[in-house]
């Protein structure tokens, strides 16, 4: 695997990207019917899914109290009773990370300590249109406050204008600013409209040093779906084949059921392989997904469908 961080902007590669929407749709709609996991295999997959979750709260009204609940749930994602029934220990399953706004990083750090990575959304999230120096400073500040990962947003306008150079330069300088801290580049797929744009933006971000590419902020009307995810995964695969560097993937927004998260996991496993299905290379940005998974696990261990009220909220 390549340790190189930055790669030159290759515009001929970007401009030659071909995406056929109908064929992409055909692949995703048939794939979810070509693979399924049942019973204890499904439980294992769902537990794995928990470890991939970037448990997120990104609301304007987030306070210490809200974040405290979130952190506690992140550390203890599954009800003790269920854990016992599954023969698991408390430490076996934790979420992938906590994902918050900058001003809550310190609060999280107090509760979480070093038990979980803390990701902060940054660079003028969600629109990404504040001044360049402000956005860069946000990264520095968040890292100073203790963020382990930075979710940056790209300037979607650059994509719509096909201004790959500017997009590349900006993301590259964000990565430079972040240094060893991992950055996840949020493409804002809903704003990019076409899958061709999604693919091209993916490539530019990877060339510019992004450690992860992430579908969306959760604030746009279209978030992660199997189609845009498939396209991003294929770009990750091409990039890996060309450079030897494994880039991570983070679908975010709208993944709220066990059924849906399994589809994403299957998609990643089929397109990139099982080695990509681990928190180093795959994260799911979600808030209400966890409780649905917990309900499925409850059902598996008890044989009964769970009442939501029985399970702790975050």
């Amino acid at each position, binding site marked *: 695997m390549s340790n190189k961080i930055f790669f030159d902007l290759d515009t001929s590669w970007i401009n*030659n990207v*071909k*995406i*056929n*929407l*109908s*064929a*992409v*749709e*055909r*692949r995703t709609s*048939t794939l979810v*019917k*070509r*693979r*399924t*996991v*049942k*019973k*204890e*295999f499904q*439980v*294992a*997959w769902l*537990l*794995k899914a928990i470890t991939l979750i970037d448990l997120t709260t990104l609301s304007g009204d987030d306070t210490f109290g809200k974040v405290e609940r979130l952190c506690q749930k992140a550390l203890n994602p599954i009800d003790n009773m269920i854990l016992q*029934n*599954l*023969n*698991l220990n408390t430490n*076996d399953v934790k979420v992938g990370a906590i994902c918050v706004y900058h001003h809550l990083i310190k609060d999280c750090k107090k509760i979480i300590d070093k038990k979980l990575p803390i990701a902060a959304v940054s660079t003028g999230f969600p629109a990404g249109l504040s001044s360049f120096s402000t956005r860069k400073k946000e990264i520095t500040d968040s890292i100073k406050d203790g963020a382990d990962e930075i979710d940056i947003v790209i300037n979607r306008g650059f994509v719509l204008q096909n201004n790959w150079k500017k997009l590349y330069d900006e993301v590259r300088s964000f990565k430079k600013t972040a240094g060893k801290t991992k950055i996840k580049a949020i493409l804002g797929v809903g704003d990019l409209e*076409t*899958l*061709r744009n999604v693919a091209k933006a993916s490539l530019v971000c990877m060339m510019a040093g992004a450690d992860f590419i992430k579908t969306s902020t959760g604030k746009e009307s279209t978030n992660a779906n199997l189609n845009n995810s498939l396209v991003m995964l*294929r770009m990750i*695969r091409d990039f890996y084949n060309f450079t030897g560097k494994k880039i991570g993937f983070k679908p975010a927004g709208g993944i709220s059921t066990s059924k849906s998260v399994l589809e994403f*996991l299957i998609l990643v*496993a*089929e397109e990139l392989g*099982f080695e990509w*299905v681990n928190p180093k290379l795959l994260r799911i940005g979600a808030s209400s997904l966890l409780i649905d998974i917990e309900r499925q696990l409850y059902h598996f261990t008890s044989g009964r469908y769970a009442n939501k009220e029985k399970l702790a909220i975050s």
Partner: protein
Amino acid sequence: MDKIIKNFNKLSYGPAPEDSEEVYEWIKNLNKPNKIFINNKFVKSSGTKKLDIINPSNKKILGKLSVSSKKDVDNAVRAAKNAFPKWSKLTGFERSKYLYALARMIQKNSRFISVLETIDNGKPIRETRDIDVPLVARHFYYHAGWSSKDTSSNNKPIGVIGQIIPWNFPLLMLAWKIAPAIATGNTVVLKPAEYTSLTALYFAELCQRANLPEGVINIITGDGSTGEHITSHKEIKKIAFTGSTEVGKKIIKNNSDPNTKLTMELGGKSPFIVFEDADLDSAVEGVVDAIWFNQGQVCCAGSRLLVQESIEKKFINKLKKRMEKLRVGNPLDKSIDIGAIVAPVQLQKINSLVKKAEREGNKLWQPSWSCPTNGLFYPPSLFTNVTPASFIAQVEIFGPVLTCLSFRTPSEAVTIANNTPYGLAASIWSENINLTLDIAPKIKAGVIWINSTNLFDAACGFGGYKESGFGREGGSEGIRAYTKYELPVLNKARIKTNKSIYKNKHIDKTPKLYIGGKQKRPDSGYSFPIFDIKNKFICDVPNANRKDVRDTVEISSKAKDKQISSFNRSQILFYLAENLQDKENNFVELLSSLTGLQKNETKKEFDISKERIFYYASMADKFEGSIHNPPMRGLTLAVKEPIGLIASILNDQFPLLSLITVLSANFSVGNASIIIPGEKTSLIASEMYQLLDTSDVPSGYVNFLTTKQNSLNKILSEHENIDGIWLFSQSDIDRRKIIKNTISNLKRYWCPNSKNIDWYNNEEIFLNEFLYQSTQIKNIWIPYGE
């Protein structure tokens, strides 16, 4: 619970079997051997032969299959024949209610049917559940609609239809056959394939529940011997066959009645063309759907991968990685891509073809994992180092085996794609719509998928060019195949009282053959004499032989490659009519002398001939295709394409008008023609060719060979470079001979019983019949979206 920890640490799929208890219960309760379905009742077969019904995924015997005897076939045909008068006279709405009931029942029992099909055939439950069975229901819905829609009085039901279907899509092929047949008022005797009869027997139960009138649908099980009883049965008016080209040819050859209608949906070796500007990842998935769908046991499987050289290596690497991900195994498992091969003999065939290809130096690649051994499994396989000359690039394997060839330019792709006796389907991948739509018409195949593959729908026609068969299933074109149109017949014979004799000119006439736009002496150096009605010698005309045919075909098949636009064709025909009018006296006089018909009669023939040219001139740009409406974001264009080179053998009835009709209809759609005039009226053709020259008919498009009656029938009907043959003859023997000979290259044929054809008829349906016969429909699927 430890399993969970283990799986959690190393994710894998694990088993996901579809529940099959209820279906096995049904199978257990089947009679051994099964009963056959005649007159809405399950009755014992009188046949003594029995076969095992095997589950290909574990080789376990499921039951015994009755091989229906001749007596059974007779009973079934009698039942269908008795049912026909009433069924065909029901209103469309009445018939459509039955089709609707069947469609609903299929949907309501869809999972049962899917499981049963998977157990019997070995194909994955994913496919039976998501593809086969929904398409079956769709087919009955669609045709329920047709039956209430099609009230045309001209296209009548045919009668009893014999239907023989293959094992690769057992219930889907049944639906493709039965739905259009009964929708249009026919009754059927259907034989499912010997390996896969169970879903057909279940369907028979649904027919009972739907209260279908007795005898409309009869289903009899059996093997090839039962099939032969069906195809040779005198009361069967049409045979619809889907299966191998080899058996299809045999059916055509053995068919004793030239009036029996045939449709043949036969084999293929379909090209899957990937250009350098395609979405390669999507194209790889396309290959998966093309050749690893239904274990590759698909007549239209994209089994010949053609990749542009510039991306060949990259594409093959992607493909191999994808192949590693395919899962072969228990077809009832919901996470299986490739199930079991239908029967041991098929598995052996695949094995031996692959071994042979390896011996010939083609490079075989298979994924690193190994197949389960408890059933009839074969891994997905890829051959590289293949050239068009390799046998593996030519032979239909009917298994999960892909052969890869490369090309450099679009025109080379077309050449390689067409380098096969087959012409069923093709898949074209490029993000450049200009390129794909340029290639689509150039590929000789009945179905073209742009950036997609193996798409099917009841609203679209499916069927082949060349040796992949003829006739279409689905769409309006499929309805045509289940109705008949009878040529109009003269009410009374034309009166022959002409006393005038041909006035010999002082200088001798020297008619010649007309080949490639040139007047040619016959190769043989022989002529035969033409006499007038009073037996007075008029002149000698050349007697064409096989070498003249050879030369004509050489020239005209090249000529037809130079496409002329529809507007151009139309202008030329108009001009021909204009030039013809100047020759009125010549033709009227000649016609009268040759036929003995009154002047007013021959004048009428002459006048209608002019009118006819005008009709076909105007149709050159009006006999259009259509756009089908499948449930897809995209277009499916049903394009009417010329057949190519058609040889037409005429008789002495309406010598001018029949020649004009055949000539201008064929020219109108863009076919090249070789026309053999009736022997005694050969001079009509000789008089005509000068007009063709003056009317700017491009050389080679129309050719006249004069000859003695029937003397060129064999050479023309066997010639492998002639794409179609028409014979207008009253003789059943001559018609049968022609049809039999067409199997050399499965050329399209049209040999109507020509007794007393009323060539004067000016009805659109009569005139358009010639246009339908001179074209074939290509369905081009164009999904779109950005």
